[in-house]
């Protein structure tokens, strides 16, 4: 049941998907894997939307050069507070009705089942495909949706994986070559791609609209282009 405070807090979006939709968000647990450029807006908007439990996963502490885009981390967190804890501190003060869980560490084949146990949707906010494929495999084993996002420069991509309905990440990106080290990126593209990922989660949980199933959205903010490629 929603409290009176919650009904007021979420009034503007209850106008979109009803109290039933809001209850679904409240009763859901979403994992945000990677609490960086994408994970910051994703976690922020999911907290704003009233997702009942958000699990934040990352092993790093924020560095100064992260702050052009990783907006949940502040100067006082630098090289001190691991990203999940830094983000938890703000999100709990932002929305005291929701629960923020954290895992400070790297996801591995050995721990993924324990860490992601009970999660309804996984949001991929990672910076490498090795761990993305670990999420892809887990999502398919447990048959839960995975919202993929990635950015570089002014460009980004989003697609939503639903096991049994869509291609897997491995099928979509079979030839990925990892580029090690620093990559260029500007804050607003992480904000746009992360916001779209957060909306995908809300759509999956409430049944609103049409998620990007078997469709890959390509965004380039340098040229304001939004293109959808059919993956089927």
């Amino acid at each position: 049941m929603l409290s009176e405070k919650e009904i007021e807090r979420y009034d503007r979006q209850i106008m979109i998907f009803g109290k039933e939709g809001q209850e679904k968000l409240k009763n859901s647990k979403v994992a945000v894997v990677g609490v960086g450029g994408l994970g910051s807006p994703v976690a922020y908007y999911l907290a704003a939307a009233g997702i009942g439990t958000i699990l934040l996963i990352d092993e790093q502490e924020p560095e100064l050069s992260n702050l052009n885009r990783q907006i949940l981390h502040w100067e006082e967190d630098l090289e001190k507070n691991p990203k999940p804890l830094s983000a938890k501190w703000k999100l709990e003060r932002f929305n005291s009705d929701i629960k923020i869980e954290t895992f400070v560490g790297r996801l591995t084949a050995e721990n993924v089942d324990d860490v992601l146990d009970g999660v309804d949707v996984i949001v991929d906010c990672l910076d490498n495909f090795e761990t993305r494929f670990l999420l892809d495999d887990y999502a398919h084993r447990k048959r839960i949706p995975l919202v993929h996002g990635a950015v570089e420069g002014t460009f980004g991509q989003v697609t939503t994986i639903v096991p049994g309905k869509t291609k897997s990440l491995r099928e979509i990106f079979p030839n990925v070559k990892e580029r090690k080290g620093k990559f260029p990126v500007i804050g607003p593209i992480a904000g746009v791609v992360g916001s779209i990922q957060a909306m995908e989660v809300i759509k999956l949980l409430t049944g609103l609209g049409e998620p990007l199933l078997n469709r890959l959205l390509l965004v380039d903010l340098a040229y304001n282009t939004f293109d959808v490629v059919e993956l089927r």
Partner: protein
Amino acid sequence: MKVTVRYFARYRSLVGKSEEELEVPDGITVRELIEILKERHPVLKNEVFAEEDDLADVNVSRNGRYVRFDEVLRDGDIVAIFPPVSGG
């Protein structure tokens, strides 16, 4: 036959334009088109398809649908090439 090639993300910056129309031999495959693009834009060859196993890191769509490299192209096709990005 003619095909339109669209460039996304860093390919667009490297080539310096968003798209171009090319006259190519009838019935070529996506793989053959990419060979033509490498000749036409050496910058792609050097920075994007540099590895020995040539097609390592490029995704291709034909008329808005994701395709494999052995797909045969037709006159008037719009082919988009884009790199998978991995940053977060």
